[in-house]
């Protein structure tokens, strides 16, 4: 049985090195490109007619737009409109990555910590950058919530600092671990069917059960793919709110 880890190996498709740095075009890059193309083509096609009475495709795109718009408005507030393009792009990028990864022979780029880590760090540095831009040094009041008793200050500030800096870690690991674990489980279960099939006709008949379990797992992974994209986006909104409104 092939190792379940093998599906996560990054393979350079077009090796390229610039100034000693490996910038090869890999299978991960390819699937990111496919994801970007699929999203752009889908949204362009959906909104091409801009009909007053939308068709199914246009409704899907509008639902997606309104879903993210509502999420941004509810979690960041009216000042959050400026972040909508970023949050929408982030959500669609992660969602298409998660969903495309469920196709056979596809590569799930969100199952790599480097990818989710970079996205999480992007959000983290945006919070710090916009926070300092909007509030100046008063941004650091974030680490001392209002109405904290004086005798708790020395205890609360380190906890707040740690919880702030641990955000990119939890954000990235949550998505990465969910995707990686899900795909490993899919591969392991289907491996049972392959092993059973290789052991003879009688065992091959029993191999149907792992396939049926995998059908259920694929449905579960579809749900996880959507939920994890939503969780990443909504937590990004919650973190970005700190750059808009220091204490909420």
């Amino acid at each position, binding site marked *: 049985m092939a190792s*379940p880890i093998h599906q996560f190996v990054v393979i350079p498709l077009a090796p390229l090195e610039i100034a000693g740095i490996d910038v090869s075009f890999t299978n991960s890059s390819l699937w990111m490109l496919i994801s970007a193309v699929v999203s752009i083509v889908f949204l362009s096609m959906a909104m091409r007619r801009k009909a007053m009475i939308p068709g199914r495709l246009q409704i899907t795109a509008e639902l997606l737009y309104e879903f993210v718009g509502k999420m941004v408005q509810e979690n960041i507030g009216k000042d959050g409109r400026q972040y909508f393009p970023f949050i929408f792009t982030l959500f669609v990028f992660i969602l298409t990555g998660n969903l495309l990864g469920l196709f056979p022979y596809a590569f799930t780029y969100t199952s790599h910590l480097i990818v989710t880590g970079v996205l999480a760090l992007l959000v983290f540095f945006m919070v710090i950058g916009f926070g300092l831009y909007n509030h100046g040094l008063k941004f650091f009041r974030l680490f001392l919530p209002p109405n904290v008793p004086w005798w708790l200050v020395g205890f609360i500030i380190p906890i707040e600092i740690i919880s702030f800096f641990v955000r990119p870690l939890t954000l990235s690991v*949550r998505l990465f*671990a969910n995707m990686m674990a899900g795909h490993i489980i899919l591969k392991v279960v289907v491996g049972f069917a392959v092993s059973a099939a290789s052991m003879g006709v009688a065992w091959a008949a029993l191999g149907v059960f792992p396939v049926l379990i995998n059908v259920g797992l694929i449905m579960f992974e579809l749900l996880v793919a959507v939920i994890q994209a939503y969780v990443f986006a909504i937590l990004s909104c919650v973190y970005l709110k700190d750059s808009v409104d220091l204490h909420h």
Partner: protein
Amino acid sequence: MELEAAKLIAGALVTLPAFGAALGLGMYFASYNNAIARNPETKKLLDEKFFLILAFIEALGIIPIGIGAAMLFG
């Protein structure tokens, strides 16, 4: 051989948190249903954060399984 046995034992032990996650999910759904049954008007309020909290609890179970699988097959 001992290393392989240790890996198998470690990989099995690291899946134990799935019990906690399963318990947490069950309690979460029970509380959610209970709250809506007692006061249907709170459904909209509860639905807003439903999937977010679900994902948090589920992640605590799936992350150790991923680590266990990585330890076993890595």
